């Protein structure tokens, strides 16, 4: 097995190449599972709401015998949502899906551009091969065995999946910029991240992380006496103050 290639590098006229980190099988599978749940829930929701309206009461039983209007308005749209989700959403969202966006990855061509509709269709048509024999067996095997984590559809369409840091990172970067003082850039980022996530962490985790950060940057000078959460937070803020 060859070592995974970390980045897609695209030449630029500035002389500074554009570097895009490649997504591996883990990130891709995670995005797929999120999307699978979304399309399943949407398809089932359409079916449930459509059938409830059709029956005029709380019953999900299909009408017997099946009526053409019910099939046209309930069954076909549900199946279309499930089966056409990927090609339609990927074309409409320029190589992203809600699952990919959640994971922070998107589809690009080898030049770093958003693939055209033809490439997206080819990529999705080859899901037939990638999904064989079950649970994307061919696709997953190819992803593990290729340097750039490609499945058959990617090979055919000339596409790759890369990570992208979106605009939500900007806040963190800005906060880190304000905290560079006694800390180096990475330390400032960690401190900014920890203070931002402070309310969402359990108390033990807050204290443990604050202790580790103080120890790392202040060493023997760190004030590591026991205290309540507020004291640990104020020590962390003093460290992160420029």
């Amino acid at each position, binding site marked *: 097995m060859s070592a995974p290639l970390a980045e897609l590098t695209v030449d630029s006229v500035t002389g500074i190449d554009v570097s895009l980190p490649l997504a591996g099988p883990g990130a891709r599978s995670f995005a797929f599972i999120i999307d699978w749940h979304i399309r399943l829930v949407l398809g089932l929701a359409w079916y449930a709401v459509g059938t409830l309206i059709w029956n005029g009461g709380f019953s999900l039983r299909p009408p017997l015998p099946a009526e053409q209007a019910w099939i046209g308005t309930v069954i*076909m749209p549900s199946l279309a949502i499930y089966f056409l989700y990927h090609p339609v959403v990927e074309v409409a969202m320029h190589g992203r899906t809600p699952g990919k966006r959640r994971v922070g990855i998107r589809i690009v061509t080898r030049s770093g551009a958003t693939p055209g509709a033809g490439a997206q269709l080819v990529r999705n048509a080859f899901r037939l091969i990638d999904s064989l024999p079950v649970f994307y067996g061919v696709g997953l095997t190819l992803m593990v065995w290729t340097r750039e984590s490609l499945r058959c559809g990617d*090979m*055919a*369409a000339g596409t790759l999946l890369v990570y992208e840091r979106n605009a939500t990172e900007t806040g963190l970067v800005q906060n880190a910029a304000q905290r560079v003082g006694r800390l*180096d850039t990475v330390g400032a980022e960690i401190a900014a991240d920890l203070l931002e996530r402070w309310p969402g962490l359990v108390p033990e985790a807050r204290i443990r992380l604050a202790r580790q950060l103080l120890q790392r940057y202040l060493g023997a000078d760190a004030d590591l006496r026991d205290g309540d959460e507020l004291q640990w937070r104020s020590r962390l803020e003093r460290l992160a103050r420029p």
Partner: protein
Amino acid sequence: MASRADAAARRQALAAALLGRTHVWQEADARAARFARGRTDDAADAARLADDYRLLAHDVARARALIPASRTREYLESAYARAHTTLHHGAAHAGSALRRLFLEETPAAVRWLAPYLAWTTLIFVLAAFAGYALVHRYPDLIALFASPATIASVDSGKLWTQGLLNVVPSSILSVEILTNNIVVSLFAYCLGFLFGLGTLYILGLNGLMLGAIFAFVGQHGLAGELFKFIVAHGCVELSVMCLTGAAGAAIGEALIRPGSGGRLESFRAAAMRTGPVLLSCALLLVGAGLIEGFVSPDPRFSLATRILIGVGYWCLMVAFLSGRLFARRPRQPLTVHG
């Protein structure tokens, strides 16, 4: 020792200065996003985007040297990549991508596939003749191509399609048929991946089945009835199967005889060249499925009407695949008559 401390302090000062430019990156990223989504076409803004690109390149180079293992560097790389893509590839519009697909890419792919189409059609026709000859000579072989229920129905003197609408509503029939046809056509395309053998198998098998069934129903005097059933939807359905088979054959040939770029590159080039026909083929099969569900099994349609529908839809298919259906006529230049 002191000089090492000075160097560290200098690096930290440079990193702090670099991080102080965050708002500039933010503005540049927002501008690139506006252009990428086609939300602005302001010339001054476009000029600023070019400046942003150079500025981001400069900062990326510094970030790679000063803060390589930081999220700030990762964010900056992404902002630089977005500016690069926007500047070099323009805005992406789903609508214009689809328009280009139908008006330019599909007709070009069909033209390129013409020799492959001739070969796959020949293979399909030869397989149909072979199936016909086999069952004509050895009638028992029909058991290889048709289900026992179909054989029993024909043996009793009627086609299995008669009274089909009494059993299954047209809409269900259409959905089943068009789904099956689209999956078979996509397999005919994708199985070109197996050096063309999968495509050959699907074309050959379908040709054999068609010929064998015609020979079998002919022996019971029902060939005319079967033709009447098939003609409305079959012209397009079989043409599309040959076309997707041609695309699969092109992929197979690319793998068997790769150019100087290597097998993977050759496969990618062939798939990209032939891929645009897939959406058109799927749409045409939806139409064929609707005809097969609503028109073909309905005894109220006469043979002449069915032929008219079949030929008409086939002509529509040719116009659609050649790009003439939606092509805009070139405007006549204004002339002054003296």
